[in-house]
């Protein structure tokens, strides 16, 4: 007998006669939040990321201010006004490593946990593009922010590779002291466009 059949057989033997289970879902699926953008910004700041909350009209100029003259990775499908003034970086791993940063949009953001989710869709780059450069500038539209985790899970497409980002990379492995900046981008800067 192959491993697959043997394991399945052992499982069937093991659970024979076990009771059926009801899953209670009494938790909050849509927590009430008055100011989604405000709470999101506050929670992202808690992770020691840099956050700006700006009216949509001011966002392109703010981005230009941040990326001017820097070698930035510019993902396919990024609105052109989100990278004006930047020098485009090449796409090889070595070029990503040498780039100054990457600028992206996102798929969903979660206010309660201060999380940004990327799904490699237009303007969000490949997984390597948002990982290897040391600086990540992410633009979040107010309409992309949901209150809690359940709404985000419902909006996301599991067939796409997803990256959930909550602050810059960090470790607490040495005496539980939090140190920002290990292997992922050491600086995360977020612009919330309202």
């Amino acid at each position: 007998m192959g491993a697959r059949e043997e394991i399945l057989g052992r499982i069937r033997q093991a659970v024979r006669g076990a009771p059926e289970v009801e899953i209670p879902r009494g938790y909050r699926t849509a927590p009430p939040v008055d100011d989604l953008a405000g709470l999101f910004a506050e929670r992202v700041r808690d992770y020691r990321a840099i956050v700006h909350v700006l009216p949509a009209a001011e966002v392109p100029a703010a981005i230009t201010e941040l990326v001017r003259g820097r070698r930035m990775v510019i993902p396919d499908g990024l609105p052109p006004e989100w990278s004006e003034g930047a020098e485009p970086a090449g796409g090889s791993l070595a070029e990503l490593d040498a780039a100054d940063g990457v600028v992206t949009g996102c798929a969903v953001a979660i206010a309660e946990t201060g999380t940004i989710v990327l799904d490699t869709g237009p303007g969000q780059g490949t997984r390597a593009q948002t990982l290897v450069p040391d600086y990540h500038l992410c633009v979040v539209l107010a309409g992309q922010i949901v209150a809690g985790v359940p709404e985000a899970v419902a909006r996301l497409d599991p067939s796409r590779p997803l990256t959930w980002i909550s602050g810059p990379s960090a470790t607490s492995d040495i005496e539980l002291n939090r140190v920002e900046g290990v292997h992922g981008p050491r600086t995360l800067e977020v612009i919330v466009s309202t």
Partner: protein
Amino acid sequence: MSATFLGMPGSFPNNAEKAVQNSQLRYNLRKATHTIRGRRASVVGELPDWQELRAAGKAIKDETLRHLDRYLLQLEEAVTDAGGHVHWARDAAEANRIVTDLVKATGETEVVKVKSMATQEIGLNEALAEHGIAAYETDLAELIVQLGDDFPSHILVPAIHRNRAEIREIFLDRMGDAPEGLTDEPAALTEAARLHLRERFLRSKVAISGANFMVAETGTLVVLESEGNGRMCLSLPETLISVVGIEKLVPSWRDLEVFLQLLPRSSTGERMNPYTSTWTGSAEGQEFHLVLLDNGRTGVLADEVGRQALRCIRCSACLNVCPVYERAGGHAYGSVYPGPIGAILTPQLRGMGSDLDASLPYASSLCGACFEACPVAIDIPEVLVHLRAEAPHGAAERAGMRLAGWVFGDRARLAGVQRLASRLRKLVPKRLPGPLSAWTDTRDLPDIPEEPFRDWWEREERHGRP
């Protein structure tokens, strides 16, 4: 190469006795467990629906286990449809063979690894080394453990037993490219690790990971991490091999809405961990292999009381609140799974054939703090007591219990023995001789009163009241 736990000698009481004499270890552990305990309490307290999430998490895992066969088949189909390959491994040897063959087929002799309890459990690094394949751990704590030729001692923070000065020494001795003048500042040590691993990440062709969750409905795997080493391993190499225990499943995509709240808050005490990656089958053209591991899990599943241990999501909250773990440390448990959850998981996965494994169900005061902290409500004390009944008991203990049973079985007999004991109380030593010393070595023998309580009560009843 970090050593393997399999076949470790000793017993929990012996290991613990040595550990509690190490004051540095006790200081490190106390500081770390108390810090993380406080953090967890504050972020758990933020959620008004924590108990509802906990109840849902428990039930989702129970439902998964109840129909594990069906969900595994569903997972296999979904992963395969998405371009991945699924392999089944009955035990450690089979899993190691599958992974070794997959790595050999790529022609590579180096692999990078994301921290994975399952691959430690099966001794994968050692198995790969036998075939000339070097496995590099990339989690900072795992790197510290691997460079120090040491054992992990905590599920979440495997190098919790090391302080900064010790870590600096290990880096300077073993890392090769450690910068001169390296200080023991955590930021400097972290920077050294970043530089050490960066080039390896960028050139590695094969990565090995575990997974925190697998979704049966969609075939999606989920890894939660902090440092970005996970993202490096999961997304850059051409081939990804994930070794995952069969119990890591959840039925539906929606179920992640529960566990992505329960796990980070219970584990690192954060609202969300810095990075969570999910992928389904072959992502962005990567070659993907999933190795489903039994290695004793179906045996645990067959035990009606013990099977709840398979709900575990490896958050380590039970370690951080345990008074025994805080003093004895993780190594005393002689397993990749330390602490309260290890005390119920290890003897079930490995059996209780060795002294060490048979002693683990006793590595607890049964205070119940672990049950309170567990995000999937595993009643660890209940399983401990259940396993104690199943553990082998020595002839002296069995004879003692039979004698006690005979005495307690009859009221007059008990009264007679109590009076006799009161009369002989001056003669009872503080430490009992022979096999009975096993009891008094770790416990104080209570003082025997001058008069048995029953006699006192009877006298007071008769004379004390008007």
